């Protein structure tokens, strides 16, 4: 079923038009005195129903106001200066996110440096063992103890856990970098910085 322009205008009176329709209708209203008159009458109907009509209000009051504004220059407010409520906080949010990412990267790098494998006593761990270790990592403590004893690898488990932690950290760092890159490109924050994720062995 086709919904007429007037029906949408009626919905806009009730603020029930979506943003796109409201934008289109605002343009219609601005461009048509007839539509503005209809818009005005729709509002008068509501005021009349609520008993809020001001007795003594000239029917051409808005014409008088607009005539008084005849000599006023049309406004030219830069678009960047007109922000909706949500928009106003975007730069602050962006800076906050960027700062958080920077802190996270610093902390991550520091942790990686302190947890780097000991070159004197390198820990040998196969890549294939990593998924098992990750699974172990999520087990409750007593189960973990059983697994450690059962594997008779009191040395190997911490080493594997360290590897798993490092992998998790790498993955987290990667996601931070990707998120940061996406955010920066959306909001003009260092838009052309290329972020490179990395994986094991690359």
């Amino acid at each position, binding site marked *: *079923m086709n*919904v007429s322009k*007037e*029906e949408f205008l*009626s*919905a*806009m*009176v*009730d*603020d*029930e*038009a979506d*943003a796109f329709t*409201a934008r289109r*209708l*605002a343009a219609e*209203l*601005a*461009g048509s*005195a007839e539509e*503005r*008159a*209809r*818009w*005005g*009458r*729709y*509002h*008068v*109907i509501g005021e*009349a*129903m*609520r*008993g*809020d*009509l*001001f*007795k*003594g*209000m*000239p*029917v051409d*009051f*808005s014409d*008088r*106001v*607009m005539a*008084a*504004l005849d000599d*006023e220059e*049309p*406004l*030219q*407010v830069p*678009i960047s200066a*007109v*922000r*909706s*409520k949500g928009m*106003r906080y975007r730069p602050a949010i962006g800076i906050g996110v960027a700062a958080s990412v920077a802190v996270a990267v610093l902390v991550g790098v520091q942790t990686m440096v302190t947890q780097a494998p000991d070159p004197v006593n390198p820990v040998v761990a196969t890549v294939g063992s990593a998924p098992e270790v990750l699974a172990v990592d999520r087990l409750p403590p007593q189960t973990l103890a059983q697994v450690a004893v059962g594997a008779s690898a009191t040395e190997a488990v911490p080493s594997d856990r360290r590897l798993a932690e490092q992998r998790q950290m790498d993955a987290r760092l990667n996601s931070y970098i990707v998120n940061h890159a996406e955010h920066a490109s959306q909001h003009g924050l260092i838009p052309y910085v290329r972020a490179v994720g990395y994986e094991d062995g690359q």
Partner: protein
Amino acid sequence: MGNKISDEELVRRVQSGDKAAFDALVRKYQHKIVNLVSRYVREPSMSLDVTQEAFIKAYRGLANFRGESAFYTWLYRIAINTAKNYLVSNSRRTPDYEIDVQDAEQLAGESALKEYATPERELLTEEIQNTVAGAIADLPEDLRVAITLRELEGMSYEEIAQTMGCPIGTVRSRIFRAREAIDRTLRPLLD
């Protein structure tokens, strides 16, 4: 009154140089603002002048309006300040009570000064009121209920749809058809 995609869009157009969009905002808020002003300024003709001045100030102020508050809240604040300035410049006391801007919308409809109108305008206002009431009485029940729930109870379309047990699109259509039917009888009085 929630805020107001329609206001935001109209404000945006005014700010980008489209003066006519401001006319739509005046038409929307003129009764509310003059009712509000008339709580401060007792003479009805002066209330109208102060209201006009408030709208002119609002137009000029839109150059600096950043949407930090809803347009109507901002407009009401301008109207109250304009009324107070008028009283000060005329060395009259401002009212003993303060009108909170948040409550201004509610208070705007409770003007104590409606009786101060000129006879001709008062007659026209009464005629408009009676015409609207008569047109509503003639509406089919579904249209009458829909527009009453909207205008008197302030329900959203969704709430009306739930109350009437019909889709939102039907509510929108019923309210529109009700307005159109009323408008047909009202138009000769206002044009």
